[in-house]
C-alpha cells in the first residue's frame, strides 16, 4: 500500500538532524513552527508528511530549500 496521510508518510526528512544541530528540543521547534510537539514528533518519525505551507515554513526556519530537508522516497 502506498503511504498516505492516513497510513504513513511517503517523504523522508532531516528535521531531527537540523534540530539537533541547533540544540533545540521538539518543544522549541514546535513553538517556532506554531504546531504541537506531537506534530513535530510525527514529522520526525517520517510517518506524517507536512502540508506544502508547513514545509515552506520549515524550510524558511532552517534557511534551506525544501528539497534539502525533504526527500521523496519514491524518487
Amino acid at each position, binding site marked *: 500500500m502506498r503511504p498516505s*496521510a492516513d497510513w504513513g508518510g511517503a517523504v523522508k526528512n532531516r528535521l531531527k538532524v537540523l534540530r539537533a544541530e541547533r540544540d533545540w528540543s521538539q518543544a522549541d521547534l514546535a513553538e517556532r513552527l506554531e504546531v504541537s510537539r506531537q506534530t513535530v514528533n510525527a514529522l520526525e518519525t517520517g510517518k506524517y508528511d507536512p502540508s506544502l505551507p508547513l514545509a515552506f515554513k520549515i524550510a524558511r526556519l532552517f534557511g534551506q530549500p525544501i528539497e534539502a530537508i525533504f526527500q521523496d522516497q519514491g524518487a
Partner: protein
Amino acid sequence: VVVRLDRVKIGRRLLRGAGATGLTAGVFTAGATAFHAWIKSTSGAWPDWLILVMPLLPALAVLTFAIRAPLGRWTTLLLSFGACVLVGVLAGLVMAVGGGLFSGAPRIPLLLLLGLVVAGPAVAVMLPWWNRTDEAARQAHLSGFFWGATAGGVAVVPLLMAPMLEPGSVAFVARLSPEDAFLYGALTLYGAITLGYGLFWAGWWVSRSVGSEA
C-alpha cells in the same frame, strides 16, 4: 531509554483521556440511571432533555481533552459538563412549562429548536478550536472519522439487524417498546461510531509517536 520515556508520556496521555471519558461517562450514567428510574416510576417516559444531552457528552469528553484550554483541561471538562447539564435542565423546564404554555404545540419542532440552541454555542466553540488546531491534529481527527467511525458503525450493524432478522435473538431488545428500541439502536450506533473514532484517533498518534526522542 529514550523510546521508553516517550511511551510513558503516550501512556499518561491516553490514561488522562480515558480517565476524563470514564469520569464523564460514569457521572452521567449514574445520574441518568437514577433520573430514568425516577421518571419511570412517575410518568414512565424518557425525559426529552436527557435525550438531547446524551449524545453531547462523549463528544464533549473527547473535545475537551483535544483542546488547549486556557483554564486547564479538567476545569474545561467540568465546566463543559456543567454547561451541558444546565442546558439539558433548561430544556427540560421549557418542555415542562411548554406543556402549559404551548399546549398542542408540536413537540418535534420544539426539540429541533432546542437542538439548534445547543448546536449554536457548540459551533461557536468548535470553530476557533478547529482553526487553531495544527494540521497533523486535524488529520488525526479526519482519519479517525473516516476510518474509525465508519468501521465502528459497520461493525455494529449485525447486532442492530439481529432482532429484525431473527426476532427474539436479543433478549434485551425483545423487552423494549418500539420507541425505546429505536432510541437504544440509535445510541448503540452512536456509541460504536464514537468508540471507533476514538480508537483510530489514538492509534494514529501512537503509531506516529513511537521511535523518536522528546
